[in-house]
């Protein structure tokens, strides 16, 4: 039996989370390791994402000692203080003791896309530590935030039965990106109806039919969901050559790094706005190289 080097992984994550871009590559380890299977779980606030992860991890990992699984769970930062309450773990009590599981709670730290700015660095770091699967819980946001789609292989979008109006906004956003749709809280009234409505909407709008699965916190429907996730993973692997998904990820990662580099360069230069636009631009380019 192998034991996860928890202290090491944990410290590496902190280091990467707080590192300036110039240090991130070294902090990640910059190895060319095979990517993990990444599963994204997104959906409205309080919709049941963490509760679903609790049941899904128990189903996919169990007490296995061969496979390892990591969960990154992002909660929103307070725009006023910058602090955050990271409470996703409260719902993940059934899996708290699994030996092959590592859970990390993250603050969005001001990112507005439902993720945190360096989430791809953190995912890469976990891959370097050999996790075979990574689950990513996004901030429960308005669902025009579709960035999560770019960083995972399989995207699960959850909708609670009482979602009502938010389904309207989701239709033209994240729902179109969903590989699997889950109606949570199946024990509540309206779940059946919501599942039927969503299936109809998806057929009509997107012309494709992602599975729509109903789950309950008791575990009902979770085996079916897990099977659908595995089936989608297989489909992706067959459809999309590994080099293509690797290229897609690499490009997203490069964009994320350069975006942060730009923010850092702008912040460090108080005089950036002086002179003409092209002078400012040259200054910025010069700053990008030194930082």
């Amino acid at each position, binding site marked *: 039996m192998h034991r996860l080097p*928890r202290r090491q*992984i*944990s410290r590496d994550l902190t280091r990467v989370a707080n590192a300036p871009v110039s240090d991130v590559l070294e902090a990640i380890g910059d190895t060319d390791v095979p990517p993990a299977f990444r599963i994204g779980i997104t959906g409205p606030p309080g919709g049941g994402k963490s509760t679903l992860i609790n049941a899904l991890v128990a189903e996919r990992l169990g007490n296995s000692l061969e496979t390892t699984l990591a969960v990154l769970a992002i909660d929103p930062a307070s725009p006023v*203080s910058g*602090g*955050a309450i990271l409470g996703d773990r409260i719902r993940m009590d059934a899996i708290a003791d699994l030996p092959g599981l590592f859970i990390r709670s993250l603050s969005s730290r001001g990112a507005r896309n439902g993720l945190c700015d360096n989430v791809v660095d953190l995912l890469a770091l976990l891959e370097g530590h050999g996790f075979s699967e990574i689950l990513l819980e996004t901030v429960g946001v308005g669902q025009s935030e579709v960035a999560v789609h770019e960083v995972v292989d399989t995207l699960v979008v959850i909708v609670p039965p009482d979602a009502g109006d938010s389904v309207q906004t989701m239709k033209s956003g994240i729902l179109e990106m969903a590989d699997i749709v889950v109606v949570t809280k199946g024990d509540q009234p309206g779940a059946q109806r919501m599942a039927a409505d969503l299936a109809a909407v998806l057929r009509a709008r997107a012309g494709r039919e992602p599975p729509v699965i109903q789950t309950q916190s008791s575990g009902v429907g979770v085996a079916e969901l897990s099977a659908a996730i595995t089936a989608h993973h297989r489909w992706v692997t067959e459809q999309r050559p590994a080099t293509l998904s690797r290229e897609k990820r690499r490009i997203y990662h490069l964009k994320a790094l350069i975006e942060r580099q730009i923010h850092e360069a702008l912040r460090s230069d108080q005089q950036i706005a002086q002179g003409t636009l092209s002078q400012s631009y040259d200054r910025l380019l010069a700053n990008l190289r030194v930082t």
Partner: protein
Amino acid sequence: MTLEKKRILIAKPGLDGHDVGAKVIALALRDAGAEVIYTGLRRSPEQIVRIAVDEDVDMLGLSILSGSHKELARSVIAQLHAEEAGDIKVFVGGTIPDEDFDNLREAGVSGIFTSEMTIDSVIAEIERQLS
């Protein structure tokens, strides 16, 4: 904010089911800029230590109203050391009689907070110790 990017775990070991005090502290820490991980009720010392390690916290606050603060604090601190995480500062809050303070400090507890203290003084002390 002085607690910016500090990670703090607020945990409730033992069997009592009251977490109002824990939640008040968690919110005050968030308002001071900290990233606060909250575990929910009734976690074992083993679980709390594992969470503290996985989350790489700077500080672990144990909220204990059940009266078994001495045993729980010792157990948590011993296990932190066993996991090479003895550098994580442990604070205890709740109904702690004065005569137990020395015992807790000897066990390695860095701060003791009782309901008589104001929230502001609690936060100020945490800021001082983590800076």
